[in-house]
């Protein structure tokens, strides 16, 4: 029973930096107990991430996750209220990471289309290696229970990310000021998601997804352009 008790990988390593120590002692180093707790959470998240990727959201049980993390279900529940809570943490970490690399990729884009293409390109390559987890995330995000829990915050980050180049384009006079930016913002998210879904369910390559995005932009931006 010594499966995968090893170190943290990928985005979970950043957890320790992202999570501040207890609120009553913000400037001091975390206590040993707090550190141990963080480590436990990290181990659970790592195991959960792997099982959700392999079996989907419904297919992975708390019991399986506990076994894979080499701990009791009680220990899992001491750290997370339920499976949604656990999944939400994973999704938040993933989203933060994705938005970060997309925003970085956008720097230096020549115009609104170029900025969006840069963002989409880096994101599609990123998700190519994470398709099973992306599939589980989408299933949760669209489920009746998941909407309230994971919907708002994570999706909001993408919305704000796509909003920035749109507002900048209006300021520069590339897009008309009187067009419905909010609606365009929403459609961009839907187009973005549809490309990820194509990658997940139809095996579309990141390159083909990007070409698709380029064609989508020309349709979606058509009514808002300044000629």
């Amino acid at each position, binding site marked *: 029973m010594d499966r995968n008790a090893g170190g943290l990988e990928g985005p979970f390593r950043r957890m320790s930096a992202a999570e501040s120590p207890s609120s009553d002692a913000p400037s001091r180093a975390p206590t040993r107990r707090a550190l141990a707790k963080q480590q436990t959470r990290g181990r659970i998240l790592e195991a959960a991430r792997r099982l959700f990727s392999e079996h989907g959201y*419904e297919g992975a049980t708390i019991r399986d996750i506990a076994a894979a993390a080499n701990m009791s279900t009680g220990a899992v529940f001491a750290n997370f209220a339920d499976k949604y809570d656990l999944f939400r943490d994973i999704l938040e970490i993933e989203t933060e990471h994705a938005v970060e690399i997309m925003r970085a990729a956008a720097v230096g884009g020549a115009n609104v289309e170029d900025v969006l293409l840069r963002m989409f390109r880096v994101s599609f390559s990123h998700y190519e290696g994470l398709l099973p987890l992306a599939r589980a995330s989408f299933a949760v995000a669209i489920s009746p229970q998941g909407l309230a829990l994971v919907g708002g915050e994570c999706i909001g980050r993408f919305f704000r990310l796509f909003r920035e180049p749109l507002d900048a384009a209006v300021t520069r006079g590339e897009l008309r000021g009187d067009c419905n930016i909010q609606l365009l913002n929403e*459609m961009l998210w839907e*187009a973005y998601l549809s490309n990820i879904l194509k990658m997940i369910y139809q095996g579309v390559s990141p390159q083909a997804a990007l070409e698709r995005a380029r064609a*989508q932009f020309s349709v979606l931006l058509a009514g808002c352009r300044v000629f």
Partner: protein
Amino acid sequence: LSARQVRKEATRQRVLDAARGLFESVGYEGTTVRMIARAAGVSVGSVFTTFKSKREVLSHILHERLDGLHGELNHVASQLRGSTADRLRSIFAIHFAYVSHHPSLFLAYVATTFDGPGEKSEEQRQDSRLWKILHGCLEDGRTRGEVCPHVDITLVTDLLLAAYVWTYRLVAREDADVDALSQVMDRHIGLIADGFTPRPDAAA
């Protein structure tokens, strides 16, 4: 039919009836196979000899409903008048009105079909029927000169479906009614129509 087949079919119907009732009263997630078996008056084993999983029961129930819907949409699509955008709006309005009777059930179905590894999702089959109806509507629009010849109709159809999948979430998240849903979808169709309508000012 042999006596055995008759019995099997009767069990199947009882399981489906029981599941319909439970999915509607306690929801898909809250319903267990054991509850379905109890309500149907059969053993848990009998449920599993008839259906592979709870998910398969749900998918069977929704397919029955969607068959009716797609038949109706096909019929209506051929009789629509007005601009291409208006026709698209009508198709979605009918669709929303139909599925809104069981919003959370339909949403649970969409979610389960997107979850987990494995087989091609049934949702894609269902989607493709709506997809064909929308695609046909756009092709008609092109013959009437309302859809720019340079625009990729397949791409536009995909965008419409992308907007639809996302808009549908509103039902569960905000408890939106059919009218609210249709209004949101109408705006999205408007934006997409701006992209496919021939533009005299951009001809140069």
